[in-house]
């Protein structure tokens, strides 16, 4: 019995969100990277992230998981009226690395940002993407004064698989950040056996 009032409310348009995660060591330029392409300036939110539950007895009344609040940055790109791309930066502090798992939920791709002056910091991000099976590309942040290494040298130092794109990226440059995102989309397409036009 559709007793619609004079003006039936339109159903809300179904909108989808996709999520990319930007990971890397502290100060590698995650916020700058997000800000280069986000339509809003990078926003910071305080989110409760699930923390370790090892050794905690599970009971019926108390969740074994505990949470800790961390600050994380994110940006938004409205792709079209029904698709929104969110870029979430991992909490930069090393001690929160183990809490990134919540961010991986629903993430379709990732960007590991690498600072060639502190390449060891990059392994946490790369290992994390690999362990969660989140396809990723590597952006090598070219800081002023940082020694310019050949991309192949960096690839070797990082030990990433040959099919994973590694490309230079000045996080302040919108064009270069776009290149990294385009490379990621291409990598996602290749990984899922999809051929993209253009």
């Amino acid at each position, binding site marked *: 019995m559709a007793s619609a009032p004079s003006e039936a*409310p*339109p*159903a*809300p*348009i*179904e*909108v*989808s*969100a*996709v*999520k990319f995660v930007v990971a890397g060591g502290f100060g590698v330029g995650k916020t700058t990277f997000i800000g280069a*392409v986000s339509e809003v300036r990078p*926003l*910071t*939110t*305080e*989110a*409760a992230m699930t923390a370790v539950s090892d050794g905690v007895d599970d009971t019926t009344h108390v969740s074994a998981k505990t949470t800790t*609040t961390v600050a994380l940055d*994110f940006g*938004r*790109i*409205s*792709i*079209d009226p029904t*698709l*929104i*791309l*969110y870029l*979430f930066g991992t909490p930069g502090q090393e001690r929160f690395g183990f809490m990134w798992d*919540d*961010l991986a*939920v*629903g993430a*379709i791709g990732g960007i590991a940002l690498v600072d060639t002056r502190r390449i060891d910091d990059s392994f946490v991000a790369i290992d994390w993407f690999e362990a969660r099976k989140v396809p990723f590309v590597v952006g090598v942040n070219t800081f002023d004064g940082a020694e310019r290494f050949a991309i192949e040298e960096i690839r070797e130092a990082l030990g990433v698989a040959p099919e994973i794109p590694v490309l230079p990226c000045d996080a302040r440059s*919108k064009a270069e950040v*776009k290149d990294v*995102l*385009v490379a990621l*989309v*291409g990598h*996602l*397409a290749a990984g*899922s056996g*999809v*051929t*993209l*036009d*253009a």
Partner: protein
Amino acid sequence: MSTTGPEDGFIRPFVITGGRTAHRTDLQLDTLLSAAPARRPRQLGFEHRAVIALCEHPISIAELATSLDLPVGVITVVVDDLLEAEQVVVHRNRSATVSADVLERILNGVRAL
């Protein structure tokens, strides 16, 4: 004799949520919400009305938290109330699976930036 009073202007999060912390686990940072098209008028608190107002356009949990300067944990409780009251709706079709269509649109969208 209280040492702190209302004059400090700080409202603790548990006041807004009525002391509740439990929330649906399916509300993620990037979960999108819209205001329900047909809403019955309800007596709602300030935060609840503020969330509905922001939901006029699709918006994520993370953006709601930032816009209202409230912790994500508070936003999820408020949103849970609003879902219960049928004041907002969740966009269910999260593109967790990568389709050629979605990738193509992202590619075009990024190139157009």
